[in-house]
């Protein structure tokens, strides 16, 4: 740990920035969603009630609008510092205390830079492109917000029954912005970058969607809030571990934990087996039409199905991350802006605020992609510690202590503990994925465009179809969310 100081600095920086981001979001939401409606309800007029309702309805979008720019700023800094650590450097450490304000300074610089529209460019399209690129990421974040805030009623408004499909539709729009910008720039490099981006996005959308459809199939719904809710209850219930395929194991272990008295040991042992049997053997036997004497066979098939299901889901997750990297143009799929080939691709001609918007959207997309992964595969705002382990570790006591401490704040609706904890877990999950993306960025070289297409069409799409079929069959023999 010779680099301890630098890692510590990155940790502190992250914490400080998280406090800033979520403090700002919290303040905005609190004022608009709770404080103003509370103040207005004292007036008995209808207009006041309408205003209060409107305020509440606007809270989710406001929180996203506050969140995105600050978060993107932090993510740029996070990535730069993370890469610096991987490459035995220090990273930006000049502006502000230990470089905390570097990206804020960059943002200010970009805002005040001259906004150049090249001669011969289609000025209207040129201006429209960054907006088309950026706006969908705001919309895309909305259902996710509902999913990750642990069903807080203030953000429930943002939920849609077609949640994940909405997110996918929204995330498919930015490529139009890229093509538009590439064409409108009147620059050949930009044009090639835009075309590449279109080809890439259309190709990689398919494995991306298919892998998410696999998850939706297991969940039996498109609603992200439902999907997140189904996975609650510890790491063994998450979709990445088969979405409830291990639930029987979870239940059995919790039963074992609950009966700690030695006299009950024997009983609990039998009940342990019973639970496993009821959860795994019986549905399998039922599905296969096996009789009572063929439990061994049913057990083998059930175990195989569980392993298959979990393996398929892992592959689906890999496919999702690959497709997502390609969708948001990150290394190793950053061909639309490949510096060594196309100067800077579609944003070659952009400067000032328009470039800033492109930059902002890129990192926001990364965040959204990571949050989709967190919601779809990693249980959203769920605490990874299962209930039995949490009890053993004294989770309820800790929770009650925290609740006690927060009680005065909860009283005036300043803090909502479930939302708070959910947010903390989501952020940890999302930034772990982002950190992994940074690591990948620090390692891999870039694909070539034809290889990228080959890889997408000849490898990923068949693989995602295979995974899809495997999951369809495997879940017949295992209790996944749908069954329970």
């Amino acid at each position: 740990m010779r680099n301890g100081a630098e890692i510590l600095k990155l940790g502190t920086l992250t914490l400080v920035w998280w406090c800033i981001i979520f403090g700002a979001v919290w303040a905005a939401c609190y004022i608009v969603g709770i404080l103003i409606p509370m103040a207005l309800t004292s007036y008995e007029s209808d207009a006041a009630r309408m205003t209060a309702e409107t305020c509440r309805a606007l809270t989710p979008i406001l929180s996203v609008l506050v969140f995105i720019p600050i978060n993107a700023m932090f993510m740029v800094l996070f990535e730069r510092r993370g890469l610096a650590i991987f490459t035995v450097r220090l990273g930006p450490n000049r502006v502000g205390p230990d470089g905390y304000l570097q990206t804020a300074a960059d943002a200010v610089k970009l805002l005040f830079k001259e906004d150049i529209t090249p001669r011969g460019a289609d000025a209207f399209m040129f201006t429209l492109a960054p907006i088309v690129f950026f706006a969908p990421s705001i919309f895309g974040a909305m259902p996710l917000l509902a999913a990750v805030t642990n069903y807080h009623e203030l953000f429930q408004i943002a939920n849609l029954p077609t949640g994940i499909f909405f997110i996918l539709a929204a995330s498919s729009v930015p490529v139009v912005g890229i093509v538009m910008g590439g064409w409108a720039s009147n620059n050949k490099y930009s044009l090639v970058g835009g075309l590449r981006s279109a080809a890439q996005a259309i190709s990689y959308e398919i494995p991306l969607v298919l892998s998410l459809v696999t998850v939706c199939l297991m969940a039996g719904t498109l609603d992200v809030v439902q999907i997140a809710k189904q996975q609650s209850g510890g790491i063994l219930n998450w979709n990445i571990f088969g979405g409830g395929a291990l639930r029987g194991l979870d239940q059995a272990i919790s039963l074992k934990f609950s009966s700690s008295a030695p006299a009950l040991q024997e009983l609990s042992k039998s009940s342990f087996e019973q639970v496993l049997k009821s959860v795994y053997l019986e549905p399998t036997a039922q599905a296969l039409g096996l009789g009572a004497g063929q439990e061994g066979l049913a057990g083998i098939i059930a175990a195989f199905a569980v392993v298959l299901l979990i393996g398929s889901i892992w592959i689906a997750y890999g496919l999702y991350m690959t497709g997502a990297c390609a969708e948001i143009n990150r290394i190793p799929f950053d061909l639309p802006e490949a510096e060594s080939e196309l100067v800077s691709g579609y944003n070659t001609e952009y400067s000032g605020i328009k470039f800033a918007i492109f930059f902002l959207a890129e990192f926001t997309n990364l965040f959204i992609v990571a949050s989709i992964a967190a919601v779809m595969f990693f249980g959203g705002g769920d605490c990874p510690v299962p209930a039995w382990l949490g009890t053993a570790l004294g989770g309820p006591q800790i929770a009650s202590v925290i609740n006690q401490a927060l009680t005065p704040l909860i009283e005036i609706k300043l803090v909502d503990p479930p939302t708070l904890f959910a947010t903390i877990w989501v952020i940890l999950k999302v930034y772990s994925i982002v950190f992994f993306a940074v690591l990948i960025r620090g390692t891999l070289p870039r694909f070539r465009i034809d290889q990228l297409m080959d890889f997408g069409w000849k490898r990923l799409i068949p693989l995602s179809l295979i995974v899809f079929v495997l999951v369809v069959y495997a879940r017949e023999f295992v209790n996944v969310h749908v069954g329970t």
Partner: protein
Amino acid sequence: MLALSLVTRAKDSLYQICRGLKTVAMHTFREPITQVYPDKMPDTNIRGRLALAVNPETSEHLCISCRQCERVCPDKCIEITAHKSPETNKLELIEFKIDHGLCMFCGLCAEVCPTSCIINTNDFEMSEYSREALVYDLRKLTLSQEESRYYFDRKEIPLPKPKPAKAAPAAAGAAKPAAAGKPEEAKSESEAKVADAKAADAKDAKEVKQADEPEKQTAAPEEKEETENKEGSDKSKD
């Protein structure tokens, strides 16, 4: 078969990628190699900014206006103004200018200097707002006594022998600070040579320089003859 080979290759690729990722991730636990430059000045041995050293013992200026550096400079960035003192009939340095905007820090001038007067310091920071400010004059070039001692020690140059005290025209040296006091003309070259026990290469340079002197005079015939301030000294060369 094909499917199997595909799976094997996918596995191999994944393993290799993970190996790369691991190698990169393990670099997290290495000490950063970045030097925090303005906070901590690097300890370099670089051939940096040119400067004129003084005798660390006596703070005499070491330049003898021999113009060797001016002649050897590939960029012609050194300009020496000297005149023959009417009293002592020796060369007296009036002005010494180095245009650091032209200089390429080859260090040839330092190599040929017979008295180790012109040296490359380890200083590399000379940002200025204008190009004119990069032209260093005698006052800016001359090092203090301590700095000279530091560089003489660092570069392991033997200390020059103090010159015999002269009835001083030192005061006549215009409005220059004491450190940049009027440099005195050196004794004859042979004397200086005997006096200064130089490092091997420096000595070589000097010995042959004497031998080459007449030849060089043909190329640059102005040195001993002209007593006046020569601004167009470089023009006289072809």
